[in-house]
């Protein structure tokens, strides 16, 4: 069924169309939730809440302005942010270790890591790092947009991104070392 027909049917409250839309987008949206939330349980909560909002607000979606996936991404990101805000303070000062050179500069290191491991790495980031990294790197927001959305300064956004990347590098290196060790053995 074409996407516009599915949307139309969803707007009329058709249960089958709603299920189809859910099936179509549950995996990408769940990946997004996993990236934003610290645990799988939290990600599932946000996924459920996000889909309820999608079906509730679907009439606000304008196909001329954005793709459905883009619009849904925004709904799920907002839901995740609301969820995080309600739970605790998003940003807290966290010290990271001094910068350490990553010896591997090619993609080889990443080919040895699964998507699941990468997602886990992102999830394990402190909340502030995780949000800025996701919004800047994955969703393509600018620092100004992130700052407005998270109610922080642009410099804070930049610094959080820097620290997030540094921490990820560290995690990648660690995971790579483990993988190499396992390979050598």
């Amino acid at each position, binding site marked *: 069924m074409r996407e516009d027909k599915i949307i139309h049917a969803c707007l009329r*409250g058709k*249960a089958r169309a*709603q*299920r189809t839309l*859910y099936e179509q987008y*549950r*995996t*990408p949206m*769940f*990946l997004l939730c*996993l*990236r934003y939330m610290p645990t799988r349980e939290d990600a*599932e909560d946000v*996924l*459920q809440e996000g*889909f*309820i909002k999608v*079906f*509730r607000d679907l009439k606000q979606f304008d196909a001329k302005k954005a793709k459905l996936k883009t619009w849904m991404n925004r709904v799920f990101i907002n839901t995740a942010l609301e969820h995080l805000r309600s739970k605790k303070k998003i940003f807290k000062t966290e010290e990271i270790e001094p*910068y350490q050179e*990553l010896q591997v*500069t090619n*993609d080889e290191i*990443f080919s040895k890591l699964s*998507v*699941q491991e*990468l*997602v886990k790495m*992102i999830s394990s980031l402190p909340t502030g790092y995780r949000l800025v*990294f996701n919004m*800047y*790197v*994955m969703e393509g927001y600018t620092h100004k947009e992130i700052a407005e959305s998270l109610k922080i300064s642009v410099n804070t956004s930049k610094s959080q991104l*820097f620290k997030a*990347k*540094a921490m*990820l*590098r560290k995690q*990648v290196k660690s995971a790579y070392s483990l993988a190499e060790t396992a390979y050598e053995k």
Partner: protein
Amino acid sequence: MKNENQQDRIGEIFAQKLEAASSEKALWSTPSEAIWLGVNAELRKKRRERRLLVLFLFLFGLMIGFFLFGNQVMEWFGWETKKEIPIANIEQQRAKENLLILDSQSSRENEETNQNAVLDNSAMTPTAPPPNVPKQKNLFQGALASSNLLPLNVNETEERLEKQASEITVFETTPPEKEEMFEAQFEPITNLQSDVIALLENDEIVSNFEEKIIKQRGTWIIEASSGLYNSLRRYPISTEELELEITPTSTWTFAANAEKIINKNWSVGTGIGYRAAEFDANYDLNFMYSKAEESRSPDGGFEKAYRHTLPSLLAPLDAEFILVRSTDIAEGEDIPLSLELSHGIQHLNIPLYTKYRIHFKKLFLYAKVGVTGNWLISDLNTNHKGTESHHDAIHSRSSNFDVADGSKAIVKNDFSLSYLSSIGLQVPFSFSFTENTHYLFLEPTFTGEIISTYPDAATGDKIINLGGQIGVGILLE
């Protein structure tokens, strides 16, 4: 610089790998089925609310339609409250049922001498019966009778009016007077209405109302309301299949209720109400007088009798009316008749109900079910007025009917239990001089009542009321 490039490269690689994997279905990236069950449960709730809204609008429309076109509907479906009794059976029936026919002083004067006189009770004088005709009974006789053989007291007055323009005007000018009164009642509401419309534009009031209901569990809501109902009923006495009839019945209610909030959706309530039921039946009919079909009372009076099946609690009080005197009419004469009946009773009632409320846009919709205990606090008041027009003269008569002592049909302090169900909408608003949140509500209502109207009845009388009430409520904080 190298550091930054490496870090940017990390971000880029993360983005590429995750984007490529976003549509891949793997076990770890597949949410549990419980997520869909949760989403679907919420969607089902929305669908249910949508259906409730449609049902609400349908019933609301039905209620409005019933008030506007109820009488026409009755006619279309042939649901009439009057039944013509075969005239030939009247005497036989009277004898069988021991119907009380009161001998009152005849108000009938000799037509040659008193045709133009206007008579009242005090002016009534006995007259000698015509030759070969037995002693004339009362010329306008009213009786309550039928299945349960109720005795009857009749207080009779009679007026005979000449057909004069001024007197006709009296009948015709009554409706406009009522109309003026009706308009006057609505004047103060105009101001209130404009306030409410302004308040409706304020979303904050709506969200406040919901928030308060959610947060203030266990607090109370006080409501005051007034309602108007029309009734459907089943014929209670017949041993045959119960027949559904519509009667042009109007019932006014006034109520004050207190509701306790249980949670966001549920509340329970009770209160006290007053109910004044007026059962009206107005007949207009023409008949052509025919000597061949004439049915005379023993005194030679022409009789045209109608059985009026009274609604609801008054059902046993079927009435027969003899309207026209044969001495007043001529062979082949077209006689228009009009008969007005009204019966009134009053109840106090105490409802006990539960209410389920949902938020829909700026309104709150609710459904309510419960039971109501009703106590009869009044006597039966019955009024009858009949008019006939012939020989260029209008005859207007009125009688008062009271149930005799010992009648078991209507007894003061009678108790009945009724069930109620209704749906309604609430419109929150607030006043500037108080922080309390108020709401207006409109509530189309369906109530059903089963009551045994007299001890020997084979079945209880069943009545269904369709109507609605409007009122205001305040959330106590």
